[in-house]
């Protein structure tokens, strides 16, 4: 699916995040204005500490902004308290982390069920696992799977609730490039099949080639944005 420029999913206005350690104030985000569109796959690039994870956390309702505003469609996230943010995460957001964060005592299917049990319109766990190509591994525990498989379970868990946005923080960071490509394939598939707006943070600049849009971060600000006219398939990417 192509991104739809008229359908704004996230909008931030002068978004600022300051870490006050007492002695020094660190501007993790120094006034970010950004729009993210429906069905878009955006890649955030930038050096460590440039503010991309902070942005992702605030968009995902995990962290509070110091200043500025964030809207998810018509919902102003910056006005929500803890309870509201929990609700927001539960209903609209899927997360994929660098270290998978699966529950070791639950099988692949049960890890997915964690989400489908509480989401309003979920797909069946089996279907989610099928999407990531792990239908045959669904009764295995995380410790019985490879890193790539675990990450795919994490993606299945994230998409099973049919979220409107999928936020991925270094999803391939802990994987070798071959396994990483498999994971990216899944992300691309989900983005295209379900129309889920997806943000991927990465250190591997080559991954930008699969995005609709690339956003470069520097010192808590957006340095530049780039639109890919010709996207590459993950299998064509090498890093």
């Amino acid at each position, binding site marked *: 699916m192509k991104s739809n420029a008229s359908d704004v999913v996230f909008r931030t206005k002068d978004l600022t995040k300051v870490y006050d350690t007492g002695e020094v104030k660190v501007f993790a985000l120094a006034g970010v204005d950004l729009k993210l569109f429906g069905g878009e796959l955006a890649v955030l690039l930038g050096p460590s500490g440039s503010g991309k994870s902070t942005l992702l956390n605030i968009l995902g309702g995990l962290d509070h902004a110091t200043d500025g505003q964030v809207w998810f469609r018509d919902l102003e996230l910056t006005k929500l308290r803890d309870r509201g943010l929990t609700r927001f995460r539960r209903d609209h957001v899927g997360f994929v982390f660098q270290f998978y964060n699966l529950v070791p005592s639950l099988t692949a299917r*049960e890890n997915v069920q964690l989400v489908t049990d509480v989401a309003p319109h979920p797909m069946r766990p089996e279907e989610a696992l099928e999407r990531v190509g792990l239908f045959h591994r669904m009764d295995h*525990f995380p410790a019985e799977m490879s890193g790539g498989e675990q990450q795919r379970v994490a993606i299945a868990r994230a998409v099973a609730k049919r979220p409107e946005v999928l936020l991925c923080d270094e999803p391939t960071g802990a994987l070798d490039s071959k396994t990483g490509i498999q994971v990216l394939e899944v992300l691309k598939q989900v983005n295209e099949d379900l129309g889920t707006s997806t943000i991927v943070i990465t250190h591997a600049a080559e991954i930008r080639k699969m995005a609709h849009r690339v956003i470069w971060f520097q010192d808590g600000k957006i340095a530049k944005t780039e639109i890919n006219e010709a996207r590459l398939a993950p299998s064509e990417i090498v890093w």
Partner: protein
Amino acid sequence: MTGMEALDRKLLRDFRRLWAQFLAISLVLAAGVAVLLMSFGMSAALDETRETYYERNRFADIFVDARSVPQSMLEVIGDIEGVAAVEARVTTNATLDIAGKSDATVAYVASFPASEPLLNVPILQRGYWPDPFSTDEVVLNAPFAEANDLWPGTQFTANLNGSKRTLTVTGWALSPEFIYTIGPGSLIPDDEDYGIVWMPERALAALLDRTGAFDNLSIKLRPGFSTDTVIDQVDTLLEPYGSWGAIDRTQQTSDAFIESEITQLRMLAYILPPIFLGITVFLVNMVVGRIVALERTEIGLLKALGYSDLAILFHYLLLAGLVAAVGVGLGFAMGSWLSYGMSQLYANFLKFPYLIYAVSWNTYLVSGLVGFIAATAGAARAAWAAARLAPATAMSPPAPPRFHRNWLDRALSAARVSQPTMMILRSLIRWPLRAAMSVLGMALAVSILVASNFFPDALELIIDSAFHQSNRQHAVLFFNDAMPESALEEARRLPGVLQVEGQQYLTAILRNEHRSKRAVVEARRPGNDLSRIVAIDGQIVDAPPNGIMLSQRLAHQLDVDVGDTVEAEFLGNRKGTFTLPVTRLVTQYVGLGAYMDQDTADSMFQQAPQISVINVTLDTREDDAFQASLKELPRLGGRAMMVENRLGFEETVSQNILITTTIYAILGILITVGVAYNGARIQLSERARELASLRILGFTRGEVGYILVGEIMLLALIAQPVGWWIGWRVAKLMTDSFTSDLYAIPLVLKPDTFSSASLIVLTAAFVSVLIVRRRLDHLNLVSVMKTRE
């Protein structure tokens, strides 16, 4: 050197950081140390005090009462092999009339020799001993004198052998024979109501018509000689003089009571402290184990830096040492306080002349050492594992816990439990030992509460059986000698008396082959209404004619059943040895009862009907007149007022029960908090990442909290039936071990006992977990995303 200091600083910081967990463990340890200190220390202190007192004041080994024995027999008994000293006395029971006191008071009057007494030497506390030739001067036992304001110089009247004498108090004394005194028919000591009077021998013998004779003998043995052999010879010698049979110290009322107190204290030392120390071992093991797991990389680093295995081992053992130091310190404080409270309690009814109530320093040493050993033993496994970690392995993360699907998982999946519930259940299956130990810990807390809570119900049952069912009389009058049944008519004429019933108490030794038991056989008329024999099932029974009815415990001790026979050797007034068929058994709580039909007894002794006890009901409006008439009644040896008796008993019991149930509740709570709080903290530490992930996935605090609270509370719930069962076993053990000749404690376990124990433990567990749950609010969701555990 500087390196070691840095490690020590780490130790102290770890301790400070985890202070709440360590405190919870220290409190459990402290409870163990305190109970050990108190029970072990107090039993040793009581034992030592008693021994010293007996030794210094030459407490006798054998005691005999007889009717009247000529003085010449004294020499014969003194010549028995093994006898070191003998001392004869004349004694009687008397009613006293004390100015300003309406109630008749009962006292045991004993003669005091002209020369220094040889045995059971009383210690003068105040005043002086009367002149041996004095006829109206006496010394009183100090607690009785104090309770009645009978200071040296004051006077009172005593009805001695039918003649009223005005006596002057010259002093107060304490005696090893009367450390614990209890009046006839009483259940608890009452200093105001029952006293000991020492009177110069000459005067008392004259009053009792016993000049040149004695009726009470104390014998001291040479070390190494058998009490039984001497008792046999004494019994043979005194048989013609109406002997009631010689008894040893174990049957001497005062000593038997102290002995049972010491035994109970020792029992406590064997039952409770091991529970607390065992739980301490488990908790220290769990917490230090978790610390070592978390500090894996630090341990690797320290080793890479050149710290020896031994240094690492000591580092973690020292952590346990700090827990022990706090626990032992608190235990000493709690134990000293408990011992002080206990000694105050004892001071109320045990009359020692000097205080050796202090807990000895070596009790402190031993209980402190035990505390340190428990804590160190708990840390040993984890500390050893830390010391053994190879640096390279230590620096890499541990292998993740492996879960496998088994039939249990399939069952759980089939049951369609929610994923959070599945997480709880899998964790229990994955660490079954830890789960089992936590269950056991909390179950022990429940059991302590069950085993202590059942006492009030048991006592209530005893009180109901003894007072409301069996003894419905208002007063019991005891006489020094048996009297014809016509005495009942005299009693009926006393002011205020509504109903009278007579009974006779006969002292006998009952034998079956080599087994024998000294007992009081009650001869009674069928259908007696004031004093009834009530079986445990509530049935009112009478002694069938032509035989003897025994209480279940007595029959058990003699190993006889219905249809067997016992040989009964009657002592004292009505002498003779008879073979009696056991006609019936009755199960009772109090006393080792033996019963006969009055007519059977009378015809057996070929005598006219006699009675020695009269039960009466009273018109309470005439109480004062009734009491006044008792003061005039000749040959009255004692009287028991049943209502006062019951109220006094209930008051003492309820006070003690309030104290003990509070203490046990605190102990149960300490255990629960120790187990539940630490269990939850460790779970939180292990699951922090998991729980944060769930929060990120959109689970609410409540839903995430459920996993934490759910696991501990599930364990707490499983612990309940286990705790009930252990509690029931412990209660059974306690009733069995506390059951003595005097009473049997019924095992009354009402639903209330179980539910209140469970309520306390579940509440304590829930509050502990809620305290830990609050930490969930501070989970850093963002950092979880970024780090690998």
